[in-house]
């Protein structure tokens, strides 16, 4: 299972490295979303207060695109079917694709955070770095896991573009809430302190634990004919 996962993650990342869809298309998209948020929210004070939330919202929107892309490379030439035909362990496919997605998301989130510092004058504190990094890790894993799970279900069915957000967005709500609050605590947004953030990280941890087990079990039945 883990051997297959490593194989698939390496393949996905190699494809991404060659095609540069994330860097050339998804990142610019996420950036323009960040700028648009500022237009919609108008004043500097409001933007500064909600900066962590905007980072995670932009991540969620980008997640939808990344998941579509991750499964488009599989369905383009019948590779999903070829994988099933080759008897590749579905749990391995799930973990591998989630791993590759997590790596891409992590890059995206770091860029968005830097952007939040630049555009929304978010402030990084030395004391909050540990919390911030752990939050990024946990939230990234959570998003990648559920994204892969529902992306696999929606891949190859009619109306996948509309079905995926309908299934995915309600599920990632706890990540949005948890990651935003933890990030606020880490950045000290509107007077939050670092210790406020740890309970939220617990929530993210439970989320990751549940969906890594649930997803590993569920992915096979979901993609099977």
């Amino acid at each position, binding site marked *: 299972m883990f051997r297959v996962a490593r*194989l698939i993650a390496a393949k996905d990342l*190699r494809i991404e490295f*060659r095609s540069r869809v994330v860097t050339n298309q998804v990142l610019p998209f996420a950036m323009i979303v960040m700028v648009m948020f500022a237009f919609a929210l108008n004043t500097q004070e409001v933007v500064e207060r909600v900066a962590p939330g905007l980072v995670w919202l932009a991540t969620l929107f980008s997640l939808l695109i990344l998941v579509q892309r991750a499964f488009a490379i599989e369905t383009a*030439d019948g*590779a999903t079917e070829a994988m099933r035909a080759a008897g590749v362990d579905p749990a391995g496919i799930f973990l591998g694709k989630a791993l590759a997605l997590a790596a891409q998301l992590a890059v995206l989130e770091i860029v968005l955070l830097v952007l939040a510092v630049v555009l929304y004058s978010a402030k990084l504190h030395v004391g909050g770095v540990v919390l911030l990094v752990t939050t990024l890790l946990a939230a990234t894993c959570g998003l990648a896991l559920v994204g892969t799970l529902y992306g696999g279900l929606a891949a190859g069915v009619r109306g996948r573009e509309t079905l995926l957000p309908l299934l995915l967005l309600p599920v990632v709500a706890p990540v949005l809430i948890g990651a935003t609050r933890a990030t606020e605590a880490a950045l000290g947004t509107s007077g939050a302190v670092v210790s406020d953030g740890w309970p939220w990280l617990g929530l993210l941890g439970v989320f990751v634990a549940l969906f890594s087990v649930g997803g590993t079990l569920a992915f096979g039945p979901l993609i099977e004919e």
Partner: protein
Amino acid sequence: MEIVVHLSNAVAVLGQFPVLAGASLTVERGEIVLLQGPNGAGKTSLLRLFAGLLPLARGEGTVLGCDLRTNREAVRKRVGLLGHANGLYSDLTVTENVRFWGSTIGATEAEVEAALMRMGLAQRLKDVQVAKLSAGQKRRTALACLIARRAELWLLDEPHAGLDAAGRDELDATLREATAAGATIIVASHELERAGALASRLVEVVGGQIRDSQASPGGEAQSQAAG
């Protein structure tokens, strides 16, 4: 002889349409069976059924000793399917593709090299991205992926499509070698001359059923030569 594929009155459904409407067929080890029939007759579905992809709606089926009704996933690791789609990643090179599909069942680097060599991809093309290949070259790459998988039962859907003369010769030689090594091959093809010469048996598929099964005249000589 050992029976590799046994179908009895198999019905398979795609959506609500019965692609297979009661097909019965027995294939023994070492055979090269050619499925022929008009478009939409059910050749591809038959291959997908053997590969354990399509669920059996009614009837019985056994492939390599695995019951298709209860245990169709088990058959997959031992079967190699070349479908209409090649299953290649267009951003990866030829070698990377073959290596990826080979390693899903743990093929070694030497086996990957051998597969590339076999389909004439070891030289100029091996580091070219699949997106830049012609249709025939992609087909060759897909075949190389299949060879690297060392399957016991080969299921080929129009393998000759898009291949040039040299490619066809290489394919045919590969298939003969495979059967000599104990593999069984089922080919769906419209190219009777080419595939008929290779096959040991012709099977006609019509309306989701097996109509007729007869020994191929060209194949008799072939199987004797191989034996």
